[in-house]
């Protein structure tokens, strides 16, 4: 099998308190750099993960366990302190609904802007525009400024753009929560379809039933460490217990 995502024992430390002013840093330097300027903790601690092409993996864990942080490392938004991340093919992340949407622009403008942000060319967007519009079911609201959209409509359009970027690796972080039942179903089907088409999926969700349906493999994170990696049903069972 071909590895699509290769995470090799990465660690990431975050500071608990951010310093923001030169004054504080200056005082710290003048005092002879005693102590650490800021307390740190491990958000990811020696995390290793191999995902094969075409696999669907659920990242599970309680709040603050490091799931979003791990996805950000896979997408390249963050770089690890130590260890290495490598990916094969284009990565698209739905890290948060409508990141890159501008509230004052119309839905149409946002489709182009967000499409380009996610790496599509002008021709690709033109070509797929109808399909994006169809999938989102936004209809006549496409020329309305998105600040007037409901959160579900926002999600529909954002999700629709993201799946049309046709990436090899698809990262999904907790985004299906606001869609209505029929749209969630449609998204699920689409996600499954992507999986069947050999796309690699990494899904984060607290909706355990949902991920159990989409993914076959589960990875459990706890305080930045991988504590379990196996069949999704087993991982869900452990998380529930």
């Amino acid at each position: 099998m071909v590895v699509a995502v290769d995470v090799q024992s990465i660690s990431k430390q975050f500071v608990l308190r951010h310093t923001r002013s030169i004054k504080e840093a200056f005082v710290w330097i003048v005092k002879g750099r005693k102590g650490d300027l800021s307390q740190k903790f491990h958000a990811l601690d020696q995390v290793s993960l191999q995902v094969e092409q075409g696999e669907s993996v659920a990242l599970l864990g309680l709040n603050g366990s490091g799931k979003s942080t791990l996805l950000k490392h896979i997408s390249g938004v963050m770089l690890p302190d130590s260890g290495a991340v490598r990916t094969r093919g284009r990565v698209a992340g739905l890290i948060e609904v409508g990141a890159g949407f501008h509230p004052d622009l119309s839905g149409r403008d946002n489709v182009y802007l967000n499409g380009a942000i996610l790496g599509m060319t002008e021709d690709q967007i033109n070509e797929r525009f109808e399909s994006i519009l169809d999938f989102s079911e936004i209809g006549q609201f496409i020329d309305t400024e998105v600040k007037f959209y409901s959160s579900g409509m926002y999600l529909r359009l954002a999700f629709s753009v993201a799946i049309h970027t046709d990436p090899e690796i698809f990262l999904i972080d907790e985004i299906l929560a606001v869609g209505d039942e029929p749209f969630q179903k449609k998204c699920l089907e689409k996600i499954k379809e992507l999986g069947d088409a050999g796309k690699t999926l990494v899904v984060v969700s607290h909706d355990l039933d949902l991920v159990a349906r989409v993914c076959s493999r589960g990875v459990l994170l706890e305080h930045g460490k991988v504590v379990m990696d196996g069949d999704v049903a087993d991982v869900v069972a452990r998380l529930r217990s």
Partner: protein
Amino acid sequence: MSSAELTTPGLGGGLRDVLRSRYLLRLLVAKELKVRYRGSVLGLLWSYVKPGVQFVVFWFALGIFLGMNRNTENYPIYLFSGIVLINYFNEALGNAARSIVGNGGLIKKIYLPRELFPVASVWVSAVHFVPQLLVLLVACFIGGWSPGPVQIAAAVAGFAIVTMLAVGLGLFFGAANVYFRDSENFVDMLLMIATWASPVLYSWTMVRDGLFDAFGTGRGEVLHTIYQTNPLTIAVELFHFAFWMPTTTMPRTDPLLAVPPNLLDVWTPIGLGIALVVILAGQLTFRRLEGRFAQEL
């Protein structure tokens, strides 16, 4: 399936990536302009009205009331040709320095070449520069301006110097601003100094004479050379050479003293060289700092 290689995500190619994402850059610029003029009736026309009114005010207040025309022929044109360039620099650098923090929401969620944001800011300012330039050209034509290829080349060189400076410093301060929000205030101060530290309001001979009077010929010469090395000074003088000088007449303005000697053959290459160094240094700093943008924003 695809046979792409395993690559490390998040390691971009810097400004080269910006060239590769030209379409996205265009959209970001269009977005910025659209959002800026949203809900205003005159829209982009405002950027014609404002410099136009500014010029008329200068004409009266400085040229006629303060009598600056007595010292400098066609003083309003002299002033305006420098001011449009400094306006451009101020807006470009001011916005570029804020661009990374301003787009923080995007930067910490999606990976894309982050150099796009400072570059887009400078581009937006260049769009605003065009109307000012047109107002200047109208004033020049009224003043009897007929440029040759050398004048055009000088204007292009001046514009290039300022653009490269703004991109380079914008990258530097944009990145620094993520860590220390003080840096945007520092930039504001720098911009205030920039307006006065280049020969926009006064002429270079006043600087030379003033320095010689205050510090004697020897040290005055050194200080004047330092003053002259400022790439903004060089760019402003290039604009004077291109736009103002052709509107002056022989007995009132000595062509040898209108702009500093050796402006074209010595100072222009120096200015371009410094601007190039600044852009490289900005890029280098930016790349060293961008790895931690997502977590600091």
